[in-house]
């Protein structure tokens, strides 16, 4: 349990670090969306079945921290949705193989950002164009590029 709490703390700290290392550009913030990467890794982890509760909260707490820093409270919900979507995809395709992890990642970005944009526009009363604009967030595509690497590390660690 202590190791798990240490892992959650480390993940939260990494989320803060990646949040601080973000670069704002006119087309959006460029950074590694660590909680998104973590949601994918927690979903495809082979230990997911052994520790369903632990793997869920391992990405939710950093995601909530990121939302706290961003002051936009739809990201965690979108990450939970994409987490559940990857869980379903795990039974259908091999999410660890190289091209498939990227394809799954891109689909995941669409699900995540569309969900985020929809809940954001519902909350703020804006039009659904927000959802379409949220899909083009460059930082998520940057993060998807790290999916095969993270997946390989997971398999190497037998985790």
């Amino acid at each position, binding site marked *: 349990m202590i190791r798990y709490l240490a892992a959650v703390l480390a993940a939260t700290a990494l989320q*803060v*670090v990646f949040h*601080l*290392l*973000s*670069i*704002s*550009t*006119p087309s959006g913030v460029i950074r590694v969306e660590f909680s998104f990467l973590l949601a994918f890794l927690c979903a*495809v982890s*082979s*230990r*997911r*079945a*052994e520790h*369903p*509760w632990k793997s*869920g*909260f391992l990405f*939710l707490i950093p995601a*909530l921290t990121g*939302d*706290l*820093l961003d*002051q936009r*409270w*739809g990201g*965690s*919900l979108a*990450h*939970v*949705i994409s*987490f*559940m979507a990857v*869980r*379903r995809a*795990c*039974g*259908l395709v*091999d*999410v*660890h193989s190289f091209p498939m992890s990227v394809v799954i990642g891109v689909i995941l970005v669409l699900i995540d950002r569309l969900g985020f944009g929809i*809940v954001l526009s519902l*909350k703020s009363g804006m039009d659904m164009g927000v959802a379409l604009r949220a899909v083009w967030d460059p930082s998520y595509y940057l993060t998807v590029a790290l999916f095969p690497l993270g997946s390989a590390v*997971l*398999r190497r660690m*037998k*985790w």
Partner: protein
Amino acid sequence: MGRESGYSRRPVARHSGAILGIHSSEFVLLVIAILVYLWSPAVPDAGLLQTRLRIQASILAGKFSFLSGLLTTRAELEKTRIERDSARIDLDLARAELRAQSLQVLENDALRSLFLLPRRPGYRYVHGEVVGTSIGHTEARVDVQLAEAVPAGSAVIAPVLSEWTAVGRVVRSAGTRPAIAQVMLLSDPRSRVGVVRSDTPALGVALLVGAGMERLMLDFAMHPQFMKSLSPNLRLLTSPESRFLPGLPAAYMVSRADGSAFTVDESFSPVPLRAYNDLRFVVVLIVEPAEPAPADAQRAGPPR
């Protein structure tokens, strides 16, 4: 799915049947995320928190120059973005205000024609550079180089960013492109401008009389109370009867605490809002002749 399945080609395929159902942990995660989203706890000093974190991070990154450079670049980019966004908002607001004001001008014209009044005159601004000053006891004038000739009597304004202040009047203009205009400052002994008090315009008009150099005097107040209740830093605005735009600040009152005042009336004296010796650029306000309203032509009738 066991630990040993990490090396298998399809590690999770065996559990595909069970995965389609929602596990209770997923349900709890979903409920937590939805509750947090619905609650949306607004942290009032989230910006402060970020700033503090960034300061801590920059202190930590002081040892790693590349990280520090990245953070600095990031902060600069963020600052530029915020500035650009606020400038864009300002521009949009100014445009909206301009649109509203042009609508008001149309409404004003319509109302004036309804009451058979002539239209409001239009105003035009010509920017000028001060090329010569002659500020003495017997006259206070400046020569201004302008892009075009301006009619004598036009008001001259000192364009300060915070507000525009009246400084004088064009008395002579010669040449065209560029033209030289002679401006009689408010402190010229021949200058008289009607002013009202900014706090109580209802007290009526007094005359702001030039006294040479950069001195001004107040005289011929319509209402006796005008001079009796003066206070320091009280502003004097050009009155609607003057040649300036009404409401332009022309001077402010200072207390003469050095004992040089003999009477109550002299315990305060007006002082120009701008030092005339430091004038570099001015703006000349030109009143464009108003087109006669259709009602005027109708009312005037045929010439006798």
